[in-house]
C-alpha cells in the first residue's frame, strides 16, 4: 500500500508548521531533507498503527505567480514537477482565519490546480475572539471544498481534520469557468460569508507603536541583541558546570574500572576528554537557540527587518537579509538556505557571502575556551562581565566586517537590473508556543549531540592514531608526538602560520576544524593530552593553553575564527544554493584572506 502524501500549503505564517508538528511531532521525527527541496519538511504520521501518512510542510506562498525561490518549491511540488517526488494525493490548504482577505485568494489559486484538497481554517479561536464571524457551511459550499477548523497550537486541535481525511478522502473540486478574478471572487465570498470587525487587534497596534518607534524601536532591538549574547555567557554557566562535573566523574569512574594501559589513556583522555570538551557547550548553544526561536515565534523578526531595511540598503543588503543573517548566528547553513526568500539575485548572493561572518554556534566552544583562558573573569563598569563583553565584541566584529564586505561588494559589482524588493508581511504578534520552542530546542540539541557523537568521536580517534603513530624509534630525542604523522604535518605547515603566532599544535587542530569548527577544541585537547607527556595526563586543556600560549597567540586565534571559513558544510551549501563554483571560490579566498590578515595584524601588534 502506498503511503498517502499530504501537502500542507498556505500563505506564509498561517500555522502550517505548527500543524505539521502537531500531526507528526510527537510520534515521528521531523526530517529536514538536504537536496533541491531543502525548505520542504517531511514527516510520517502513524494512524492507529495501521495506516501511515506522509505529511509535507511546504514553504509559505502568497501566490503561484512568483519569482521567489522558496515559493517556486511549493509550486513545483504541488504540480509534481520535482523529479523523484510524487505529486501529493491531498493538499491541506491552511488558512489563517484572522487574515481571510489575503488567504482565501490563495485557496482559489490552489483549487485551480485540480488536486483533492481540504481547507484547514486555522487560528479560528483567535478569529472568534477578535469578532470575526465566519459562516463555514456557506463558505464551504460556495468553494466546493470541505473546511475544517483547526487550532494548531492546541493539543487536540487537529483531531477533526484527521477524522475528516480518514473518513472521506476529499475529491477534486469541480473546476469553475476559466480565468476568474481571484480578488473579486475573494471579496464576494467574504462579503457573503464573513462578518469582519472594523478594528484591528489593539495589542498589535500598541506593540507596533513601541517596537517600530524610530528611536525606541532601535534601542529595543539593540538591547535584545545584547541581552542575547550576555545570556549565552552568563545564564549557561551553571549548566555547563553541571555537565563538566558529570564528565569528570565519568572519566574517573572509567579510570577506576579499566586496567592501566594505552587503551585506558585513549578512552579517558581521547574519547571522554575530547567529546566532553565539546559537549560542555551544549547549554550555551541551547540558550542562543532559545532566543532565536522566541524571536522567530513572536513575530518580532520581520519588525527588525523593517527597522533595519534602510541601514541594510546602505550596506548593500536588504531588510530581507536580516532574518537569514540572524539565523546564521545559529548556523550559517540554514541561514544561507533561507536567503531563498530574497528575490533580488544580487542581494541574495551578497547575503550568502557575508552569512559566514555571523558568529555561528559552532564557534562558541572555540571562543569560550580562548576567552576563559585569556580574558579575566571580572566585572567592568560595575555592570558587565568582561568575558561577556569580549564575546559581544567578537560577535560585533563579525557583524561590522559583514557590513564592510557587503558595502565593498556593492561598490565593485555591477548594478543589478532586477528590481530590489522588500514587500514583507508583518504578522500579528504571538506568544511563542512552548511546544514548538521546545521541539526546536530538542531538534537542535539532537543535531549537536549526533555531530559530537559521530564527527567529533571519529575525528578524535583518527587524530589520536595520527598523533601516536608511528611510535618514535629507540633513542628519539624530544616528544614522541613530533615523530608521529600529526606532529610532522603540524611542523610542516607551521611556517605558514608562524607569523600569526600559531604553534604547531594549533596548526594540527586547524585541519580537523575544517569539518566542524568546534572539533578544533577537541583536537587541541587530543594533541595536548598526548604531547603533555606524563606529568599530568588528566590535565584539562584550559590551564594548559593558558600557560603555554602567549596572550597574543590567544587573541590571534580568536580573531582567526571570526573570519575563517573553517567549515566545509558551509562551502557545500553555498555551492548548492548558488550553483556556482566561482562564488564558492570567492567566499573561500576572501574569508581566508581576511582571517590571515586580521590574525597577522593582531599578533604583530600584541606580540
Amino acid at each position, binding site marked *: 500500500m502506498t503511503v498517502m502524501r499530504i501537502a500542507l500549503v498556505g500563505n506564509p505564517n498561517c500555522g502550517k508548521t505548527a500543524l505539521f508538528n502537531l500531526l507528526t511531532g510527537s510520534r515521528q521525527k521531523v526530517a529536514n531533507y538536504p537536496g533541491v527541496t531543502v525548505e520542504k519538511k517531511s514527516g510520517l504520521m502513524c494512524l492507529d498503527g495501521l495506516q501511515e501518512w506522509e505529511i509535507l510542510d511546504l514553504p509559505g506562498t*502568497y*501566490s503561484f*505567480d*512568483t*519569482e521567489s525561490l522558496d515559493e517556486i518549491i511549493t509550486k513545483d511540488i504541488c504540480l509534481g514537477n520535482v523529479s523523484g517526488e510524487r505529486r501529493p494525493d491531498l493538499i491541506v490548504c491552511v488558512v489563517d482565519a*484572522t*487574515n481571510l*482577505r*489575503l488567504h482565501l*485568494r490563495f485557496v482559489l489559486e490552489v483549487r485551480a490546480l485540480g488536486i483533492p484538497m481540504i481547507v484547514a481554517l486555522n487560528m479560528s479561536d483567535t478569529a472568534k475572539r477578535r469578532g470575526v464571524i465566519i459562516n463555514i457551511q456557506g463558505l464551504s459550499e460556495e468553494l466546493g471544498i470541505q473546511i475544517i477548523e483547526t487550532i494548531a497550537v492546541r493539543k487536540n486541535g487537529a483531531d477533526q481534520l484527521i477524522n475528516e481525511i480518514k473518513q472521506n478522502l476529499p475529491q477534486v473540486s469541480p473546476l469553475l469557468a476559466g480565468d476568474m478574478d481571484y*480578488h473579486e471572487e475573494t*471579496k464576494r465570498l467574504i462579503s457573503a460569508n464573513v462578518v*469582519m470587525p472594523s478594528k*484591528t*487587534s489593539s495589542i*498589535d497596534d500598541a506593540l*507596533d*507603536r513601541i517596537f*517600530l518607534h*524610530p*528611536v525606541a*524601536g*532601535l534601542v529595543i532591538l539593540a538591547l535584545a541583541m545584547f541581552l542575547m549574547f550576555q545570556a549565552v555567557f552568563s545564564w549557561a554557566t551553571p549548566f555547563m558546570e553541571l555537565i563538566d562535573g558529570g564528565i569528570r566523574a565519568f572519566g574517573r569512574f572509567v579510570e577506576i574500572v579499566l586496567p592501566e594501559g594505552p587503551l585506558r589513556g585513549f578512552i579517558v583522555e581521547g574519547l571522554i576528554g575530547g567529546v566532553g570538551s565539546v559537549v560542555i557547550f551544549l547549554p550555551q548553544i541551547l540558550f542562543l537557540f532559545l532566543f532565536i526561536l522566541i524571536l522567530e515565534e513572536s513575530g518580532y523578526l*520581520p519588525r527588525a*527587518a*523593517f*527597522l533595519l*531595511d*534602510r*541601514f541594510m540598503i546602505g550596506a548593500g543588503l536588504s*531588510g530581507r537579509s536580516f532574518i537569514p543573517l540572524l539565523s546564521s548566528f545559529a548556523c550559517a547553513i540554514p541561514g544561507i538556505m533561507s536567503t531563498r526568500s530574497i*528575490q533580488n539575485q544580487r542581494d541574495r548572493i551578497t547575503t550568502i557571502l557575508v552569512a559566514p561572518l555571523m558568529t555561528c554556534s559552532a564557534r562558541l566552544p572555540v571562543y569560550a575556551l580562548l576567552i576563559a583562558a585569556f580574558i579575566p573573569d571580572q566585572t567592568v563598569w560595575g555592570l558587565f562581565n568582561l568575558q561577556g563583553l569580549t564575546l559581544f565584541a567578537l560577535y560585533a566584529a563579525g557583524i561590522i566586517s559583514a557590513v564592510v564586505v557587503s558595502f565593498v561588494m556593492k561598490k565593485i559589482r555591477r548594478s543589478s537590473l532586477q*528590481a*530590489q*524588493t*522588500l*514587500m*514583507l*508581511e*508583518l*504578522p*500579528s504578534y504571538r506568544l511563542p508556543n512552548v511546544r514548538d520552542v521546545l521541539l526546536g530546542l530538542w531538534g537542535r540539541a539532537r543535531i549537536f549531540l549526533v555531530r559530537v557523537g559521530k564527527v567529533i568521536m571519529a575525528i578524535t580517534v583518527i587524530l589520536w592514531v595520527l598523533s601516536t603513530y608511528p611510535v618514535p624509534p629507540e633513542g628519539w630525542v624530544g616528544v614522541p608526538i613530533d615523530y608521529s604523522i600529526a606532529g610532522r604535518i603540524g611542523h610542516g605547515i607551521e611556517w605558514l602560520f608562524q607569523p600569526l603566532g600559531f604553534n604547531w599544535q594549533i596548526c594540527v587542530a586547524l585541519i580537523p576544524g575544517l569539518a566542524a569548527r568546534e572539533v578544533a577544541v577537541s583536537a587541541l585537547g587530543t594533541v595536548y593530552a598526548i604531547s603533555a607527556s606524563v606529568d599530568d595526563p588528566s590535565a584539562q586543556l584550559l590551564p594548559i593553553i593558558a600557560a603555554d600560549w602567549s596572550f597574543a597567540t590567544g587573541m590571534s586565534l580568536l580573531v582567526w575564527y571570526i573570519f575563517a571559513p573553517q567549515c566545509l558544510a558551509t562551502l557545500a551549501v553555498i555551492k548548492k544554493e548558488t550553483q556556482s563554483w566561482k562564488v564558492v571560490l570567492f567566499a573561500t579566498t576572501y574569508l581566508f584572506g581576511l582571517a590571515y590578515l586580521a590574525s597577522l595584524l593582531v599578533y604583530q601588534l600584541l606580540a
Partner: protein
Amino acid sequence: MYNENHSHLDLDAMNKRYISDMKIGEQAIITSVVPISANDSIARRLINLGFVEGEDVKLITFGPIGQDPLLVQIGFTRFALRASEASRVEVR
C-alpha cells in the same frame, strides 16, 4: 509618448496620489497598481498581496530614517513596503 499631450499628463500627475504620498494615520482607497515596465514583477506581486482596486489602505508608520520603508495596512494585514514599491499603488 511623453511629449504628446504634455500639459495634460502634468495635470494628471499632479492630481494622482500614491501610497508613498500618504501621511501617518491617513486612510485611503486603492484605485490601481501602476506597473513601471511591461513586465513589472513588483506590481504583479503587489496585486497578489491584495493591493487591488477598492481596498482600504492605511499608512501606519515609516521606518526610522528617510520615511522609508512604509508600514501599511490592508484589512488586518500589515506590509512593509519600500517607498519605490508604495509609489506604484495609486490611491484616492
